[in-house]
């Protein structure tokens, strides 16, 4: 593929009609919650998009994000996007290994300096200068800082890269941090989730290719198109929540009837993601549809947000112990203060000014 080739030509070569591409764009826009009226313009623009160099770095991660992206067993139209990008380095997927792999990375970084897209999955350990995770003798920290310098933009894929994720959960022994914690001079798109939805990763890349800019982000760096609403608000069980119908256990009548899982710890109300609409595994289902509450994986600090089976409104610490202590301490303090009050009252009594006929007489004479 020539460097300056565009997506439209690639389509033509593959015998894919522009109608088909328009259909793909329609689906993409729908999943991104873009206005359907934007589709024709989007298709035109995307067809003219140039091939994009991508470097993918994996740090403290579990490969789940890559799995999510490549999970599709049937070739779909989304895969076009991946055919079209130039994935110059991907530690997990690439055929090359050892010094050749690292050479490929350095070469891509040099060749496309300032133009490549840096995708990161996994958090970066910074404790002890980052020795907890190294690749080819280079700490993740160094590698990220190096690669970030020449990147046009960075996409933090997965909750670990976006917010620190599991490695950052208390007590965080490796000092894991997110990309945003380390890099502040490049545009960063967070695509959190554990893992993120494949279509969402594709969608964001498509958006980037189409518009040549990062999409509109929320306060924690997520594309609003995919993370604009809570799972709760788009949940098909929402109506049960509103009606006050809840499953109390996983095998009760309510659970069988598909009632709301709030009481069983569903984090849908505090989780922004598009699982409820985009769903998983070729739109088969999503956790709530399978009878399990949302665990809130696309939120910052979600591991520290309370147990998976504890409702959102439950406190994160024990209150009973402190309550008992407080009452006992309060009683003791109360007794102490009451003794002081009694004392000052007694001394007031001792200093009591006696009103008598003499004092009244005196006052009246004045």
């Amino acid at each position, binding site marked *: 593929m020539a460097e300056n080739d565009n997506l439209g030509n690639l389509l033509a070569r593959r015998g894919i009609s522009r109608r088909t591409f*328009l259909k793909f764009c329609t689906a993409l826009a729908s999943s991104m919650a873009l206005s359907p009226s934007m589709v024709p313009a989007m298709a035109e623009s995307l067809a003219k998009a140039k091939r994009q160099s991508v470097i993918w770095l994996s740090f403290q991660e579990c490969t789940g994000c890559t799995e999510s992206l490549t999970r599709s067993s049937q070739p779909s139209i989304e895969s076009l996007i991946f055919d079209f990008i130039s994935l110059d380095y991907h530690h997990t997927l690439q055929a090359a290994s050892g010094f050749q792999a690292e050479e490929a990375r350095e070469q891509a970084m040099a060749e496309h300096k300032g133009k490549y897209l840096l995708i990161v999955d996994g958090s970066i350990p910074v404790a002890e200068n980052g020795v907890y995770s190294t690749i080819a003798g280079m700490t993740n920290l160094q590698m990220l800082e190096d690669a970030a310098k020449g990147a046009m933009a960075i996409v933090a894929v997965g909750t670990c890269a976006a917010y620190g994720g599991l490695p950052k959960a208390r007590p965080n022994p490796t000092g894991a941090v997110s990309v945003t914690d380390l890099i502040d001079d490049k545009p960063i798109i967070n695509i959190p989730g554990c893992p993120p939805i494949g279509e969402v990763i594709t969608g964001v890349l498509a958006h980037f290719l189409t518009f040549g800019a990062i999409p509109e982000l929320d306060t924690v760096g997520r594309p609003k198109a995919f993370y604009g609403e809570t799972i709760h608000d788009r949940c098909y069980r*929402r109506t049960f929540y509103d009606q006050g119908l809840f499953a109390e256990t996983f095998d009760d009548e309510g659970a069988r009837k598909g009632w709301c899982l709030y009481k069983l710890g569903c984090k849908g109300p505090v989780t922004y993601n598009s699982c409820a609409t985009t769903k998983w595994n070729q739109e088969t289902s999503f956790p709530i549809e399978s009878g399990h509450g949302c665990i809130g994986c696309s939120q910052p600090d979600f591991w520290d947000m309370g147990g998976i089976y504890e409702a959102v409104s439950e406190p994160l610490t024990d209150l009973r112990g402190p309550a008992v202590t407080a009452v006992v301490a309060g009683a003791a303090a109360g007794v102490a203060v009451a003794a002081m009050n009694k004392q000052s009252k007694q001394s007031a009594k001792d200093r009591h000014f006696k009103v008598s006929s003499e004092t009244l007489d005196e006052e009246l004479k004045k």
Partner: protein
Amino acid sequence: MTRLQDIPVNTEITGLDAECNMVDAVLHELKQLLDAYLSSGETGVIDIKSMPLSATDYDSLKQRLGNGEISATASLAGDTEIYETALSGVWWVVHRNIDDRVLAEQLEVGRIPAILCAHDDDIRVARERL
């Protein structure tokens, strides 16, 4: 020990409100889109897939709109079904992929759905092939 298939699992959702008034909202929006088309020729689209329609809502919407004179199927890496509803100018468009999974479902308002029109680039390719 109980075998897996012996555990009763009932996945049918019952008790949902029959209609959440979404149908009326859609019909109202269609009316506005038709007005816009008649006054300025501007076409409009409603994305049905991203709407939280219950199954009952969906069926009821389909029934209320009915079937019109035209229907077409386009083979575009999976079928795309298009038919005109009983309301002229209101088209129901369903895009599926090769796995028959619905990619997008829309109501389109206009003379003809955009997807049916051939693109200049494709026409150019056609010309070259002659």
